[in-house]
């Protein structure tokens, strides 16, 4: 029986093992060590939710607390990446993207292209995404599609401890800037994770469930809701195929199309807001390239086009649920019968 650890521990372990393996890897971010002014290793907090806990004393001088200025330390990380280091910077909440967007959008993402491949930017930006922590509109967004829109960035969204470790190691070794999106509500999730180093390749979706009736495409925390819905639907005689994208850029178009060509039906589940999202992107891909295979309309299960509400009751309504996924599947299945 392989060892079980949490998603959070898997990320911490990937960082520690890569820092041990490669001295050019370092961490920079707000409170990633102990918070400015902390006197020693004992009270090092290790990030706002403790993900980098324990690294500061293990790697002296390589876990750097930055002032509360994303424009400053993200810029510094981008610069360090162009000069031969492998920074893992932490944008505490993805909602703070606006404070460092130029550094990512106009600098890191463009260097390889604008310098004709002579510059590489092996930067990882870890960031917390997603709703459900009662953290209100400025600390709960799912901005994955914002990064996915930008050519030159790779965007990763692990859904399990195994993927979190393997994808983060891959991200650190990758020579392009990678936005690594960690879902807050997954940090405590347990799963089997090898103790050894390993990588999970980018652009390879994970089939979590085989089925012939309908394809559910999703990523991040929604993977687990899709699996719950699929289990319930299986009891009703509907076999869902569940695809976890793992990375939204690069996107595993082949697996999505291959699955829809088999099932003829698609529901895309995305925790993000619905406009210009992974949900619309994948729907468009399938409508364009697998239209002939479709036996019914494509359905999307997403958050509404509103900010994330602070009210508990409203936030619960905002986030997609397994019940909503099930309802969408029934709608698509009925579309076939009606036709």
């Amino acid at each position, binding site marked *: *029986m*392989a060892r079980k650890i949490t998603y959070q521990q898997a990320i911490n372990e990937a960082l520690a093992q890569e820092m041990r393996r490669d001295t050019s890897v370092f961490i920079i971010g707000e409170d990633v060590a102990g918070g400015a002014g902390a006197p020693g290793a004992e009270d090092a907090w290790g990030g706002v939710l403790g993900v980098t806990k324990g690294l500061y004393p293990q790697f002296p001088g390589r876990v750097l607390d930055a002032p509360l200025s994303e424009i400053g330390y993200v810029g510094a990380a981008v610069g360090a990446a162009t000069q031969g280091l492998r920074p893992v910077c932490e944008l505490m909440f993805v909602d703070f993207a606006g404070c460092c967007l130029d550094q990512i959008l106009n600098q890191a993402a463009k260097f390889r292209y604008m310098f004709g491949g002579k510059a590489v930017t092996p930067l990882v930006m870890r960031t917390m995404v997603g709703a459900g922590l009662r953290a209100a509109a400025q600390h709960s967004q799912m901005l994955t599609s914002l990064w996915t829109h930008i050519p030159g960035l790779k965007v990763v969204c692990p859904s399990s401890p195994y993927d979190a470790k393997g994808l983060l190691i891959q991200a650190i070794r990758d020579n392009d800037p990678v936005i690594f999106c960690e879902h807050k509500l997954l940090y405590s999730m347990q799963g089997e994770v090898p103790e*050894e180093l*390993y*990588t999970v*390749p980018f652009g390879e979706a994970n089939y979590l469930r*085989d089925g012939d009736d309908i394809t559910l495409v999703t990523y991040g925390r929604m993977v687990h809701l899709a699996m719950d819905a699929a289990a319930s639907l299986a009891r009703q005689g509907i076999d869902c195929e569940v695809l976890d994208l793992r990375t939204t850029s690069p996107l595993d178009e082949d697996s999505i199309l291959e699955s829809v060509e088999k099932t003829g039906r698609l529901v895309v589940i995305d925790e993000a807001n619905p406009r210009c999202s992974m949900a619309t992107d994948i729907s468009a891909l399938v409508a364009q390239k697998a239209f002939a295979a479709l036996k019914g309309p494509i359905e999307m299960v997403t958050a509404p086009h509103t900010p994330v509400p602070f009210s508990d009751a409203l936030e619960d309504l905002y986030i997609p649920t397994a019940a909503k996924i099930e309802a969408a599947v029934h709608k698509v299945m009925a579309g076939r019968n009606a036709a």
Partner: protein
Amino acid sequence: MSQIHTLTMPKWGLSMTEGRVDAWLVEEGAQINKGDEVLDVETDKISSSVEAPFSGVLRRQIAKPDETLPVGALLAVVVEGEASDADIDQVVQRFQAEFIPGGDGEQDSGPTPQKIDLDGRTLRYFELGQGGTPLVLVHGFGGDLNNWLFNHPSLAAKRRVIALDLPGHGESGKTLQRGDLDELSQTVLALLDHLDIERVHLAGHSMGGAVALNLARLAPSRVHSLSLLASAGLGRDINADYLLGFVEAGNRNALKPQLVQLFSDPGLVTRQMLEDMLKFKRLEGVDSALRQLAQMICENGQQRHDLRAVVEQHPSLLLWGAEDAIIPATHVDGLPAQVKVLPGQGHMLQMEAAEEVNQCLLAFLQSVEQSGR
């Protein structure tokens, strides 16, 4: 005297917690004999048949097709002799009332593999059963101790049986020193030393067969008998394209056509099996270990090691699938050994024809021990 037996969901391998009933192979009311296949069960890793551990009449099918049940759950009631429906009802009721899925943390308290440090390298092994001359199971190229999941418990009914992960495989250390056959055989010997075992029966599958043969060559006094399944080291021919394809495959689509060659039923190669294999192949050090070992096994499309001369030194059993697409069954020709070629079977015969393989192995080991050699 009559006896009411309960047939329960088996536990295949370390990670199985539940199984899905695929189909019943025996009707209610039919007579079954010990070892008969009673129903098909599918897990997220593999599908196989559940065999009856006792004879009798299948009186009650409790599990329904498509039903997913935890390990240890009641599948059927088999009666030896006479029993009324009321008696059976009572047994079923009592079983269901007392059954706790996951059985008192069965996963935690049951036997688990051990990890030891042998000369600075981790070695994982898994021990079941006790008594008799121990039997050691050696898996093949790219495999691990789970390759024996359908064999290990049956073989261990009356004997200590040890399966291990060879270096570069499973959860053993991935770094090879020389990457030659001696290194693998010496690792098995080192495990025997560690466990204070003087003499063993050795069973090896594919490359593991060559490891066993080579161990017998290096340390003949440590080997009581050899059971060689689809073994390497007994002829020149080998499907070198398979070895290369397996090593090179980095994703599902590349790996699938390779793994399909191992089985007579290609349906056994599920996405889960591919995913598990990819998880192994992605571990740091595995790729270079596999490349080293592939070169050790095979040169210019032919096997390097000819260990045919070792066979006659020990009581030997050769088991092969007639349709083996990796190493041809014709390698048994002319060898002084007990030989059984199973029609229709492929390279992974210990998984696909588990029951037959187990019976052959048990009968062989018994005959070896009775003959007193």
